């Protein structure tokens, strides 16, 4: 672990979230861009139990893993990418994580597009953060036209949709570029009046 320190000149950190269902490739994308092996922390959260089982207590604790990576962008700035499932039951953890984030990459697997609905709902319902949809291409992914995916996910016309191979560094970086470009069009990131 020594040698993993940031350069002493780095004094700013910027955060992007990578969200999506289990197995969609969040950690793969983070790992392909990260300058360190992706790291993991685990958080205990208390969730209301979903099923109605009189034998179970009403609340349960669940362990949620947070995988993340880092990229030194310039002499002063480090970018952190946090991968987390975006489902409703993880929201307590996620809301704190969302604070101050530039935006989110929402990873979608077109073989299981329904798994993305809840993540997108939560993002739109609970935050105003910019997001871009990343279609992680698996070898057997069906090739839907982008506009069909936009309609299926009920996305606004301005929301970027990027096809990506999460294992490929340039391809993953391209997805991050699209997100940051999109974020720069948001009022929150316009220059303050002098």
């Amino acid at each position, binding site marked *: 672990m020594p040698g993993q*320190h*940031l350069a*002493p000149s780095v004094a700013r950190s910027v955060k992007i979230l990578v969200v999506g269902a289990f197995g969609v490739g969040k950690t793969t994308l983070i790992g392909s861009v990260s300058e360190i092996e992706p790291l993991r922390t685990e958080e205990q959260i208390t969730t209301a139990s979903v099923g109605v089982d009189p034998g179970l207590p009403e609340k349960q604790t669940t362990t949620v893993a947070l995988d993340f990576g*880092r990229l030194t*962008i310039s002499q002063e700035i480090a970018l952190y990418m946090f991968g987390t499932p975006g489902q409703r039951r993880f929201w307590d953890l996620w809301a704190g994580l969302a604070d101050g984030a*530039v935006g989110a990459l929402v990873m979608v697997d077109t073989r299981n597009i329904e798994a993305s609905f809840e993540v997108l709902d939560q993002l739109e319902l609970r935050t105003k953060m910019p997001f871009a949809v990343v279609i992680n291409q698996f070898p057997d992914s069906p090739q839907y036209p982008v506009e069909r995916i936009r309609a299926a996910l009920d996305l606004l016309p301005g929301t970027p949709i990027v096809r990506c191979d999460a294992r490929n560094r340039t391809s993953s*970086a391209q997805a991050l570029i699209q997100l940051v470009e999109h974020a720069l069009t948001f009022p929150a990131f316009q220059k303050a009046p002098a």
Partner: protein
Amino acid sequence: MSQGDEYRDHPVRSYVLTSGRAHPTRNTLRPETLLVAVDGRPAPSTATRQQRDLVRLCRGTLALAEVAAYLALPVSLVAVLVSDLVDSGHLTIRSNHQAHVLPERDILEKVLDGLRNI
């Protein structure tokens, strides 16, 4: 005591490590907050093993989440430990984030430039 893989726990319960507190003394700590130890100040003699390890890890700059991952402790718990070590003058917050404040536009533009260079 079960040593099976299906059940993992820290030998010391989280609330003992933080003297029973669940929240840090400051609310500007985020997973990406950058931390660095104050030069030449080892952890106090009364420090716990976790605090000592934390100060040692921060001899160079690391984000709170990295420290948590290396210590194998939750981010929320490490935030409490970090907060105390900042209060006692052993750690410095290298990047200060205010709650609910987004990065400035010029920072984002630099991020964009950096990503385009990949």
